[in-house]
């Protein structure tokens, strides 16, 4: 019987190592897998490479890992917001490496990573500093920049419901990067509000099919 449900963070994080690359879903706090990130913190892992839209904000998750200097590098589109002083301080002190990727390119690179695509040409960033050193190709008179796929050791996702096959539903704008990151990592770990029985999610309503999901854990918001 296929059963991707796990019941504690040690099982959820099986295989985690120092230096791991983790895709962390969420747009700001919406959809951010704070409890999974904090379980990584509690277990002492360090030198992590994080791929996420933002490099932490508020008091939870990535910000806590940043404060404890567990993160070596963040690949993101928009590192800071009004409440991410730690990120700004670490960056100013030269203690945080940032790779800035346009948001749509970040998402599409992960999709490519998950979909078996070796690269793609996008018009985004043409003639900007973010295209420096990249191949530019003119297709039908328009310039495009070559971008390569992004993959990771782990994807951390927050979803609403999961069944034992790992089929997922999300909650409104907390969907965000979840479905794309789920495709792109070697191990996709999902914290959900609740487990449901197999068959309870209408097939038309499954947003991420379980084929992309390795482990699901019910986590009460803390």
């Amino acid at each position, binding site marked *: 019987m296929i059963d991707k449900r796990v019941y504690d963070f040690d099982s959820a994080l099986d295989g985690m190592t120092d230096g791991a690359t983790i895709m962390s879903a969420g747009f700001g706090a919406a959809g951010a897998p704070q409890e999974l990130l904090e379980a990584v913190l509690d277990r002492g892992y360090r030198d992590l490479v994080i791929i996420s839209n933002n490099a932490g904000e508020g008091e939870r998750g990535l910000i806590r890992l940043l404060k404890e200097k567990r993160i070596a590098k963040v690949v993101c589109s928009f590192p800071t917001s009004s409440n991410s002083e730690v990120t700004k301080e670490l960056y100013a002190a030269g203690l945080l490496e940032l790779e800035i990727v346009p948001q749509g390119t970040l998402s599409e690179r992960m999709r490519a990573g998950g979909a078996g695509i070796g690269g793609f040409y996008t018009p985004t960033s*043409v003639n900007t*500093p973010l295209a420096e050193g990249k191949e530019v190709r003119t297709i039908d008179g328009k310039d495009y920049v070559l971008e390569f796929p992004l993959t990771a050791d782990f994807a951390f996702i927050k979803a609403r419901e999961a069944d034992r096959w790992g089929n997922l539903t999300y909650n409104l704008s907390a969907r965000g990067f979840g479905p794309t990151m789920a495709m792109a990592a070697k191990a996709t770990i999902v914290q959900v509000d609740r487990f449901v029985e197999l068959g309870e999610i209408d097939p038309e309503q499954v947003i991420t099919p379980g084929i992309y999901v390795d482990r699901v854990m019910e986590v009460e918001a803390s």
Partner: protein
Amino acid sequence: MAKLTRKQIAWRVAQDIPEGAYVNLGIGAPEMVVNYLPDDREVIIHSENGLLGMGPTPPPGEENPDLINAGKKPVTLVDGGSISHHTDSFAMIRGGHIDICVLGAFQVSQSGDLANWATLDNSRPPGVGGAMDLAVGAKNVFVITDHCTRDGQPKLLEKCSYPLTGSGVVTRVYSDHALIDVRDNSFIVREIVEDLSEEELREITGAALVFADDCVTLKTPDL
């Protein structure tokens, strides 16, 4: 000399958004445009984080932390609204499905170059978000901006000195002094605020201006 307030600029932009348009509003002043859309027009607002059919701010106490806009502020969905994941949301943007995007700017050049994501100050981390995708993807890129910086430097220039967000993308600029189209490597003034002379507008602009033959006074309600 009468300058427009941010609200008045937002009002003026809203009048140019046609019935049925799919519109993305950037963070900050552009977000205000939604407040001034004429009641008789049905316009669908897109937010880069996957909302199509975004509605107004919810009443206090009814905020949902999982329903936010690009600026991470609580919003609502209108009837008919839908949710997409990020990759699909940016396919809408890059794929040319958004009719109008309204963005802020540090600088705009007469060839339509937009600089709105990074300055020359390297001490603070830059953040691009979805700006580069919106700049190249939307069919029309409208810019809301003050005509000059706080210390009086022009923001409309022959060439941007800040890192670009996109090149040749801006179609229209709504400043606190004028409404200016960007076409054929020229700033074409369509509307100018009351009591401001053509000469005075030229003085605060860092590029040549062409005044349209039918240039009129830029009028807005008191807001």
